């Protein structure tokens, strides 16, 4: 079937897509191009002359211990959040799929956390994890100093991971549930006839058949944790204590807008962009193609 629309004038189709192209250009390609430009120049903090410096900005950030520390922090946060979010979402979906069929209402309710803006989540979790007034204050009442994300870097990271995972669980859950419900019912029944109990069926049939969903979510979650974590960090820890939670996006912001090192921040954002592009390529090249059965 011919699905292409034919236009008499070659101008009309371009006019139709022009608004979208403009938006993409103004808000994506232009800033990206600017960032590229800045990454290879030395920008004055208050504007004015800029100087071409080649790879110097990159050499500087790759030679900086603080930068590598932020990469490590980012990786810890990204993998921690993704693993936790995927695991919890998978368990929730497995149990919901087994017990409550056709629970459309629950599905909608469970995706809501994803629609909450990160700063709002950050605020909520700041209260929850507050060492003096939050849920964990009872812990401190028993063992003073047992929980203090304001002083202890590990606690702060744990808190961020929990908050980040809380948001992603909702998203992952919906995909897992949809994946589970698309597994043909007879397969589960066949496994039951073959002698497998519910847990065995989850392990042998449902989880392996969810592999495409699983890899999709790994990539999406990692990308999301790298790029969308700014709001949480800014509200909850502001990168502290002692840079223990200074992830890559937060460092870009801190260096660029607080330290006024535009060029260094631009170089960092180019590196981060490269990382996200890499993940996306993996997603399309390997995951989408290889993980489908039959």
């Amino acid at each position, binding site marked *: 079937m011919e699905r292409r629309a034919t236009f008499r004038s070659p101008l009309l189709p371009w006019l139709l897509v022009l608004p979208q192209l403009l938006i993409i250009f103004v808000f994506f390609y232009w800033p990206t191009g600017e960032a590229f430009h800045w990454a290879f120049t030395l920008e004055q903090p208050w504007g004015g002359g800029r100087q071409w410096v080649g790879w110097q900005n990159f050499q500087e950030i790759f030679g900086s211990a603080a930068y590598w520390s932020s990469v490590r922090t980012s990786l810890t946060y990204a993998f921690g959040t993704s693993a936790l979010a995927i695991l919890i979402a998978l368990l929730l979906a497995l149990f919901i799929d087994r017990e409550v069929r056709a629970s459309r209402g629950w599905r909608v309710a469970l995706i809501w956390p994803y629609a909450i803006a990160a700063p709002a989540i950050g605020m909520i979790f700041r209260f929850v994890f507050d060492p003096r007034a939050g849920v964990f204050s009872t812990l401190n009442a028993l063992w003073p100093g047992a929980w203090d994300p304001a002083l202890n870097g590990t606690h702060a990271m744990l808190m961020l991971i929990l908050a980040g995972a809380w948001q992603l669980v909702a998203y992952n859950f919906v995909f897992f549930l949809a994946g589970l419900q698309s597994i043909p019912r007879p397969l589960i*029944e*066949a*496994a*039951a*006839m073959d*002698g497998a109990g519910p847990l065995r069926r989850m392990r042998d049939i449902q989880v392996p*058949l969810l592999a495409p969903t699983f890899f999709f979510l790994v990539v999406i979650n990692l990308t999301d944790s790298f790029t969308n974590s700014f709001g949480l960090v800014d509200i909850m820890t502001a990168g502290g204590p002692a840079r223990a939670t200074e992830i890559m996006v937060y460092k870009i912001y801190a260096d660029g807008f607080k330290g006024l090192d535009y060029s260094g921040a631009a170089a960092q954002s180019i590196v981060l962009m490269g990382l996200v592009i890499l993940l996306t390529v993996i997603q399309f090249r390997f995951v989408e193609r290889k993980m489908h*059965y*039959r």
Partner: protein
Amino acid sequence: MAAIELAGVSKTYGTNAAVREVDLALPEGAFVVILGPSGCGKSTLLRMVAGLEAISAGELRIGGARMNEREPKDRGCAMVFQNYALYPHMSVAENIGYPLKVAGVSRTERQARVAELAAALELTPLLARRPGQLSGGQRQRVAIGRAMVRRPKVFLYDEPLSNLDAKLRVQMRLELRRLHERLGATSVLVTHDQQEAMTLADHLVVMNAGRVEQQGTPREVYARPASLFVAGFLGAPAMNLLPAEVLASGDTLRLADGTLLRLPEAVGHRGAVMLGIRPEHVEAGRLPATVEMVEDLGASVLVHARMPGGAALTLHSPADAAPARGEEIGLDLPPARLHLFDPASGVRLPLGRIPASQRAEDGLFVTSASL
């Protein structure tokens, strides 16, 4: 002895009854076929036996023991599903070996039994493949292999042949029957295909609207359908059903066009009846009819004729003496071949048999059609 017994088994979904009070005793070692149109509850019945559906009321016994509350795996049944339900992420060998793996059989024994089964089912060259790389017939055999591997006492088949093309279906039918003879287990197969049912069954159960309409050997059910439904459902082409009336004498039948037929023996019923006769039993004779359509079946032709009163009649005719369309032909409805049903309840009306000698004299009695 009955391998599977159902006593008053029902299945209700809310207020909707899918299976109503089914009583069945399926003989051990028999090939039982449950036949019925879609939505008659036959699959639900099978799934209740398997343990995939809860039984709403009644009792299910397999090998004498109550099974209602048992898990599917504890019932000693294996099942072949309509769409085979092979695990797409496992190879053929893993699929067949899965029940053994779950049962905790050692890897070496598992491999030995899978290899043995694969040889029997001619699957040996395919063991490393995934189900997605197999043809329909091969998938079917893998599904059967997976069911066989645990050596169950009962095989349940849920429309196993309906996804195959016509030629393969006939071939698999034979294979299923052969397999059944070799294994000696009880097989229960659900189908909507009456030909499949006739050819496979030792014991045929016809279901309609959640109830068992009739059961017995295929021959019995075919020769003496217990109800209008069974008469119309079993047999292809279907039995001719003509509205008629039993006259006061009780041994004469008047068709819609006024033709009178003498019955071999008086029946108790008076008034309106449904008269049934199978197409292969309609013979040449003196009842006028017009040929409306001729279908060539190869071995014979199927003639669709219409009688003056408007009643349609199909009959078989030898291929080399086929009548042409529009031709006037003469028919005979041999009294010994007639079936009578109550038009309201659909129940078969008992029809006496007459000795062969007498039948020869007055096979048919025709008067003028001017009534």
